Structure formats: C-alpha cells, structure tokens
C-alpha cells in the first residue's frame, strides 16, 4: 500500500514537472514570462506583466503572429532562485522562447538552464553586465554601462558648470557599483572632483548619518545610485539639512520607479533623473499604451520599464515572422536558434518609444534622457545620444 502511494506521488510530481509526452502542435504561440509577481518587488513585476499582456492583446487584435494568436504565460518566481530554476527547467522542454527572468538573483539561477537548453529568454530589464554572461541566449535592452552613463553624466554636469565637487550615494547591489564607477569616470574627465562615495546599507531605515557624511564634504552636486525609496528619503533628508539646489541632484535610472515617487512626493521637485524612456514622446502606439496603463492603474503614468516586455514580445513576433519559424516541435532547436540570432542583430526594430538596432545582442543607438521632476511628473531637460 505504501509502495503504491509512493508511486502515485512520484507520478503526480513527475507529471506536473513535465515528465509527460511532448505537446502536439498547437494553434497558439505561448510565451512564458518568468516574473516577480509576489514578494518585495511585486508592484514592479505587475507593471512589466501588464506591458507584455498589453502587447499580446494588440498583436492578437491585428492578426497575431504569423496568423496565430499569442499568449503570455505568467510564471511567478517570487524572487526565489529555488522556484525560478525549477520553473525555467519546466519551460525549456517545449517552449520556443521565453521572457524574463526578473530580477538578477533569479537570472543567475535560471538563465544557465536556458543557455544549456539553447533557448532564448529575454532578460529585458537587466544591465548588459548580467545579460552578456548568457549571450547568445538573451539580448540586452541596455547599452554598455560605461559608455552610456558617461554620456549622460557629462551632459548633466555641463548643464551646471558650478558643480565642481560631487558625492555619490551607492547601494552595493548587482551592477550598481559598476555604474557608480562609470559616473565617477565621467565626472573626473570633466575635472569635477569626486569627493567620495557614501555606501548605503540595503536595509537603512533612516538616512541622516549618511546625508551628514555627504554634506560634510561640501559637495556641489550629488548623484544617487540607490533604490527608489531610499533615493526619496535621502532627498528629503538633504532638504531638511538645507540643500537648496535640487537640480544639482541626479537620480540614476534604476531608482526611477514608482517607489521614488510614492515616497518622495513634492520633495522631489527640481531633482533630475536620467532614463532611456521618455514618457512625453507622442506616437499612436505609445499614446494608446499610456492611456490604457492609466486606466488600469488609477491614472498612474507608466513605470519606466513597463514598455520593455512590450517591446520584447514584439521583437519575438518579428523574429518569428521574419525567419519563418513554424512552431513545429520537431524543429525546436533549429527554430530557437533562428529567433536568438535574429534578435541579437535586429536592425531598425520599431520599439514602442523609438527604433533601435542590435549588434550581437547589444543595442547600439538607444537614446537617453535627462528629466527634471515636477509634481510627480518628469519634464524632459535633454535627450542624450
């Protein structure tokens, strides 16, 4: 009896984990999306998911991909590498292509599985430094850090020639220290003295000590390489201690999220932030996207990364249609490679906000923008290429 129960349990698990027969040809493109739908960044995961689902709706409304509808299959990894790895292991068996994972710890655990299986999984929200470890089975949506950030910070500093000395607040997370180093290099090339780096603990609750440390150096400019919520609190603390030149504070792109605005409120007015998404661009697709996002999110403007998986799904669509991928399971390996090769070197891809090229998985001509925050909205200051 015990043996029977044991066998039943094993069969149940094995079946659930994909031990079954290969699926027959289906009449729908299923694109699994490994995302963080629960846990500390669930809100951001929801925005990314929304972008992908919206793209799917649009694509299906205009005839689907090569005549077949597309379905985004959300898979929650809950920021848990243990879960992420098993879920990726499940999908590599039959899936043509996937999106995600999000964020970096799950990428580290799950992407090696996709690489080994020879399946592209588009990590559209991580830095090049992470993505390139898994080339050619993913692409980067972000250009090389040093080159991109040097251009942005230079443009910012040139707007304010009175910045002679600067301090950076940096959280030691993933590629952020590397980004901070790129900022420093750019500032030094402008003969701006970088007075020091204030390390921000990940679990800091108050920021008075760190802000005092920074202000003791008497900087003229401040760059924040922290989480959005922390950036907002640091800015409030700076204001409390008499910092007046709000546009001499530059917040980096990864902090440009809903947490920055929900925590910072009106205290952010005048602060500058850089990103590669400009919400004020107008084109029919983007306008429709913004309106739909606002409708589903109580009037909120789209989160800056929301278009990424929208674009990722469209890139997959283009890859399938242009390379003649059929979805035939017997050609899985070959068609996976076709999609990966196409995406790595796509030319003049029509993204939601702008067109760009890929060369060997790296975007080559994406614009960057510097904004000034006013009343919770970003006003474009400069486009930087």
């Amino acid at each position: 009896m015990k043996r029977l129960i044991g066998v039943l349990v094993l069969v149940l698990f094995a079946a659930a984990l994909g031990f079954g027969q290969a699926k027959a040809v289906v009449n729908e493109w299923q694109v699994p999306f490994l995302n963080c739908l629960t846990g500390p960044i669930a809100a951001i995961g929801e925005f990314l998911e929304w972008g992908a689902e919206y793209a799917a709706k649009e694509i299906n409304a205009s005839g689907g991909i090569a005549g077949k509808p597309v379905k985004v299959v959300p898979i929650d990894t809950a920021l848990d590498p243990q879960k992420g790895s098993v879920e990726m292991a499940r999908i590599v068996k039959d899936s043509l292509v996937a999106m995600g994972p999000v964020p970096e710890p799950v990428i580290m655990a799950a992407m090696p599985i996709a690489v080994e299986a020879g399946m592209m999984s588009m990590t559209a929200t991580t830095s090049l430094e992470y993505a390139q470890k898994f080339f050619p089975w993913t692409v980067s949506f972000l250009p090389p850090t040093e080159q991109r950030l040097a251009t942005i910070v230079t443009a910012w500093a040139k707007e304010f020639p009175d910045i002679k000395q600067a301090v950076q607040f940096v959280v030691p997370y993933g590629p952020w220290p590397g980004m901070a180093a790129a900022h420093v290099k750019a500032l030094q090339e402008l003969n701006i003295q970088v007075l020091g780096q204030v390390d921000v603990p990940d679990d800091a609750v108050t920021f008075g000590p760190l802000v005092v440390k920074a202000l003791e150096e008497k900087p003229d400019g401040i760059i924040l390489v922290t989480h959005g919520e922390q950036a907002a609190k640091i800015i409030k603390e700076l204001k409390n201690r008499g910092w007046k030149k709000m546009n001499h504070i530059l917040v980096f792109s990864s902090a440009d999220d809903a947490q920055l605005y929900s925590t910072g409120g009106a205290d952010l007015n005048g602060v500058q932030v850089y990103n590669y998404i400009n919400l004020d661009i107008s084109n029919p697709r983007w306008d429709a996207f913004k309106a739909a996002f606002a409708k589903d999110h109580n009037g909120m403007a789209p989160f800056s990364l929301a278009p990424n998986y929208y674009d990722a799904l469209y890139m997959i669509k283009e890859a399938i249609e242009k390379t003649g991928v059929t979805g035939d399971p017997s050609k899985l390996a070959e068609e996976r490679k076709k999609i990966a090769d196409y995406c790595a070197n796509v030319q003049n891809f029509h993204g939601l906000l702008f067109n760009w090229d890929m060369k060997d998985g790296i975007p080559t001509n994406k614009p960057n923008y510097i904004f000034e925050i006013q009343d919770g909205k970003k006003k474009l200051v400069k486009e930087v290429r």
Partner: protein
Amino acid sequence: MPLPLYYYLSITAVNILMSWALYLPYRVAHLHFITIANMAISGYAAGYLVMSLHVPFGWALATGFILGGLIGYVVSRFIGDAPTFAVVIVGFTFIFITRTVIQNLPAVGGTMGMFGLPNIGGNPESHRVIILAILYAMVVVVGWLIHRFDHSRLGRAASAVFVDPDLAASLGINRKKLGMLVQTASCTIAGGSGVLYGFIYKSFHLDFFTFALVGIFMTVIFVGGYATLWGTVVIAPILYGVPLLLPSEIQEWRVVIYGALLILVLVLKPEGFITPRFVRSIETFLSGKRRKRNISLKEVT
C-alpha cells in the same frame, strides 16, 4: 532525467541537509543561524577555487566541508554552551558580516556574483548525475549519522539539555562539549551544502543566501517535527514541491499559506507532524510485521 525533476530533487536535497543542519543544534535548544553564513562562505570559497585557481571540484567540495567545520568549531568554542539568544545573535552577526565581506570582494564577483561555474564531469548531463549522486549520498550519510546520534547516549544527553539544561549539567553532561559537537557538525553540513547549492545553479549570488532561507528551514523543522530527523525528510519535499503544483492564483499567496501552516502546526501539533512517538509506532509496526512474517516462515519450515 527530466530537467525539472533534477532541479526539484537537488534543491530538495539541499533543503533537507540544511534543515538537518539546523535540527542538530536545536537538539540542544540552539537556533544556529550561522549555518546560512557557512553556506555562503564555503560556496563562494569553492567557487573561487574552481573558477580562478582551477582546483578540481572534489577538492573544492572538501574545502567547503572543512571550512564550514573549522568556522563552526572555532565559534563553538565560545558559544558551545551559551544561552539560545547568544547563539541567535552569533548567527545574525555572521550573516551580516559574510554579506558585507562578499559584497566588497571583487575576487568572488562582489555584488555581481559569480557566473559560469563549469560542469563537473565535462558536460551538463554528467554534471547533473554527479551533483545528484553527491547530494543524495550526503543525505543518506548525514541522515544515518544523525540517526545514530539520536539513538546514542549523546542523543539522550542532548534531549536532556533541551528539556532542562541545568538538570542535565548536574547529571554530569558536559553541555559545552555537546554543544561544540553539534554546532561543528551542523556547520560542516552547511559548508558542503553551500558548495553544492551553487553548483546546482552554476552561479553564486548573495541573494541566494538571505534571511529568507532561515524562514524556509525553520518552517521545515517545525512543521515536520523538531524532535526527529524524519520530519524534515517528509516535509521538505512537500513544502518545496506542492507550491509548484498550485494554480498561480493560489501560488501568489504561498508565503501567507506557509505562515498560516507554521502557526497552525505550532498551535495544534507543537512537536510537528512527525513526532518521536509516531516514528516509534512505525518502527514497532514494521518490526511487528517482520516478527509475524518470521514466525509464519518458521511455522512452515
């Protein structure tokens, strides 16, 4: 072997081993969270040895065990007989220190992590077979050793210390030595598990070793049963596997379900699902059946 099954089995094995690494010190009422730091230290050390110094995996794994054991031994010299709270603080301290040191060490990848650990055995298939083999060999060996410990004088001494440390001391039990033994053993297990954990993913990232793991392993021990090693064996696969089978609408609330399960078990079955009495009844049942079978065979012959 299907890939999902490999990941499920290998991660379950790590969860079992790490839960046992917490179970052992808990036999003397110590919540020894330093094991999480051990996982990270040994894992990163082994990763560095393999990636940068091209040391064979076997030696790197052995180093992981030894390093874990050494750290456990040195620390236990100070906290072998310390109150539970001191042991908890030691654990937290080591987790914070370990994370901070690793963040600031470019040699092991710093905040980015360590990528591209090589396949053991030269190809992915051999890698998986070897990892699983080592993991389940560890499960068997460690399980056997813990079983022997539990059924030995040392195990009974540990039970006495758990119930009443002062009485145990007055009965002549050397609490410090016993504490040192279980803590060193637990850290050794954790060290080896940390190495294997990273080699399952073929990468290391600091967020693989967070306080969240404490929650997972504590849930396994307390829901499974903290008074016997079998609870971990039964509950670890279920706690990891069942959420994978749930529909996504329910999976969303996974953590709430874990928390509620933990509370329910503590309130209704404080010793956990698998209690020593339950284990004894199974053992009696099995030996009873065996005795009946032997008797009937004897009658026939």
